[in-house]
């Protein structure tokens, strides 16, 4: 049985599956790409042919525009095996954002799984992560330090609602990435019983519409941009992290500036951003989830992409798992 490193190669153009003739999440435009999910550091514009989950393809069209999301798009449902070149390829949910997939590849009995970004906590907007036993597991490592342990998202949402209750005359504006985090927050708020309209920064509108079109119920959403200050008193507004403490936020009534991100676990990170209410809600696996996942997939070898490779490789090594840092360029620039 060939070792995956003989057929799944790190090249300057990205991770290349040689016998399949395709790249996985290539950072530059290529002829054939398999894309794990629609975040911009994974789904680049301008590929000729793109294979991904139907949801990822739809979200790529929204984000990149019809012409940029692959000249030919091939959707692949969960668990459907497809022969690409000499390789069997299939997708299983990664639990990261809607449509996010792990790419499983098998060639001559040797199996590698590229996880893309993933998390293990439940998320009402996306199916949960499915572990796939394999010979090499390619994992992300965004939060691969033991200081990162995400609390239950429901508890963080409760803190937000408690603050809304304490400061009813102010507007709570939550900085969040526009794909995934935004919709997850809306869904979590709905689960917690928040039935009032939720206001959106313009940058968040289109992707929420795509989510709704894909069957994720988000309740009533309104544009924050046209609402007057008075309408936003006591309201919850979702906006990109770059907008919350900047000129855009001046339209809000005495805003309580919140941010929903795994980085909020560390005080200094929250302080730097001028955040008044940090909410530790992440779409990435935390330290415990990363390690538990390595144990579950049972791969004797893990390759680690974007994040803090050294700590995860160290911890894996103590359990007899061989670790290797894949220095792939361009990942992890965008969300957390």
């Amino acid at each position, binding site marked *: 049985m060939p070792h995956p490193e003989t057929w799944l190669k790190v090249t300057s153009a990205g991770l290349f599956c040689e016998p399949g003739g395709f790249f996985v999440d290539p950072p530059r435009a290529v002829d054939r790409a398999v894309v794990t999910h629609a975040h911009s550091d994974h789904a680049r514009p301008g590929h000729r042919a793109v294979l991904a989950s139907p949801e990822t393809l739809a979200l790529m069209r929204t984000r990149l525009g019809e012409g940029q999301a692959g000249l030919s798009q091939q959707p692949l449902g969960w668990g459907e095996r497809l022969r690409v070149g000499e390789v069997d390829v299939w997708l299983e949910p990664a639990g990261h954002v809607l449509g996010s997939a792990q790419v499983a590849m098998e060639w001559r009995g040797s199996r590698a799984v590229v996880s893309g970004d993933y998390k293990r906590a439940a998320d009402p907007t996306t199916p949960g992560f499915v572990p796939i036993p394999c010979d090499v597991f390619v994992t992300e490592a965004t939060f691969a*330090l*033991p*200081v*990162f*342990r995400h*609390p239950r998202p429901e508890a963080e949402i409760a*803190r937000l609602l408690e*603050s809304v209750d*304490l*400061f009813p005359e102010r507007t709570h504006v939550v900085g969040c990435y526009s794909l995934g985090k935004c919709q997850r927050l809306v869904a979590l708020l709905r689960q917690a019983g928040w039935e009032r309209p939720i206001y959106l920064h313009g940058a968040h509108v289109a992707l929420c519409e795509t989510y709704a079109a894909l069957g994720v119920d988000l309740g009533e959403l309104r544009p924050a941009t046209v609402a007057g200050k008075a309408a936003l008193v006591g309201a919850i507004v979702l906006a990109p992290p770059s907008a919350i*403490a*900047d*000129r*855009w*936020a*001046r339209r809000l009534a*005495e805003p*309580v*500036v919140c941010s929903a991100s795994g980085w909020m*676990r*560390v*005080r*200094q990170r*929250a*302080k*730097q951003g*001028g*955040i*008044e*209410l*940090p909410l530790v809600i992440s779409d990435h696996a935390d330290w415990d989830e990363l390690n538990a996942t390595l144990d579950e997939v049972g791969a004797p070898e893990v390759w680690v992409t974007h994040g*803090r490779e*050294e*700590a995860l490789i*160290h*911890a894996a090594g*103590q359990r007899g798992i061989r670790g290797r840092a894949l220095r792939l360029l361009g990942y992890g620039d965008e969300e957390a």
Partner: protein
Amino acid sequence: MIAFANLLERLVFTPGRNAKIALLRRYFATQPDPDRGIGLAAVTGALSFAAAKPGLIRELAATRTDPELFAWSYDYVGDLAETVALMWPERPVNAPPPRLADVVATLATEHKSDLPGIVAGWLDASDASVRLALLKLITGGLRVGVSARLAKVAVADLSEGRVRPDDVEEVWHGLAPPYAELFAWVEGRAPRPDPAQAPVFRPPMLAHPLEQADFAALDAADWRAEWKWDGIRVQLVATDGGARLYSRGADDISAAFPEIVQAIRFRGVLDGELLVVRDGVVAPFSDLQQRLNRKSVGARMLREFPVAVRLYDMLFEGAQDVRQLPFDARRARLEAWYAAARPARMDLSELIAFDSLEHLAALRDGARAAAIEGLMLKRADAPYVPGRPKGLWWKWKREPLTIDAVLMYAQRGHGKRGSFYSDYTFGLWRTGEHGADELVPVGKAYFGFTDAELAHLDRWVRNHTVARFGPVREVEKAFVLEVAFDAAQRSARHKSGVALRFPRIARLRPDKPAAEADRLETLMRLVENAPTTNA
């Protein structure tokens, strides 16, 4: 401990005063005794102990964490207690998190050698936010970002208006944690606690700035004038229960100024200005700054920065409250007492003779000594009213000095100003090492401008940024600001060698070329470290 940890976490990130009060108020309203009282003590700094050294935390971490992972984590987080709080391995235990009052009681009674085991047990039973609060508490590293005054305002708030913050102030220093009788009082369940013989703080009487319209309405005969000294306002309190020196904000600063406390050989409450005085000459504020914010003070400090109190009012003579007497009557008592007692390290604030308001104005304009900010005007018949009553006391600062400086850096403000570049560092020209002109920063200002000027500056900063350092932008050296300030003082701690008192933006000068801004030499000529006497 959960509610206390939540409170701390929110206070740390909350910039707004009213929001802080709301958070504190909710904590006091929802937590039981004695926990809320211990929380109040922790927030006001009345609970200062360092039961554990950072070494204990390190050792605990070593028993539960991998050394390499710990090192990487510490390197990333940058704070020991926070690193341990975040990475402490969670294991399910049956115990609830400890109660704040239990933690404090345990720390006070347990033997040091038993501490590691006890703390480890607490950490096991807690989540990350409680762990952090615990570790900060036991190492004495609790920095809450809340003044004691704010906490007292929040406590008074529980009374729905029956008890004012000043009322709390008057009993505060007679109370001790966990303040059960204080909460019972503000909640209307018990009478006002009797401070009895305790040397409690009395809220001071404050002045309004004198505007031109107010000045025109004054009748010279009704008013008394004193120099306004640039020190810190203090209150000397002595009862059978002890002697204390308080700051204007009710902080007990006795330990920082032991020579003053030793000089208190009387019973009563006096109001005055704390100054560094050498051979009868008042030193500038920068000298006094050397003595501020110290828990204790060494012999060298006592020698090089000797302090004294310039007395200007009497609130209590012995045990008798004289605050209802008119100013003239209190002043007569103060003078009579002073003549008899002759206390060390104290003198009387001089009453300035004047025969007309014009005369007074001339005196004010002539006051150019570094330690004099202007004049105080006090109504001869006014009682001593805590707070800031209108029309009884005026502060009449001399006209500010101004320079034209060049905007160098801008930083984002906090809270409401969070989206604006509202803190400005400005500089003046000097000849650099190689003969070329260079700008040297001389100060920072973050007020004085109108909303429209702020919007203008914010836009200008964004459009003329040359470099960014976190929240700070360096801008093109092309915008001139007219900066007003009360005094310029020599300072070894500043790169320019000079420190400005109360700098503020007086005007924007978009019309003025940067090259025509003032030079450092111009500012140095305004430096007023020349000796001044009380004459």
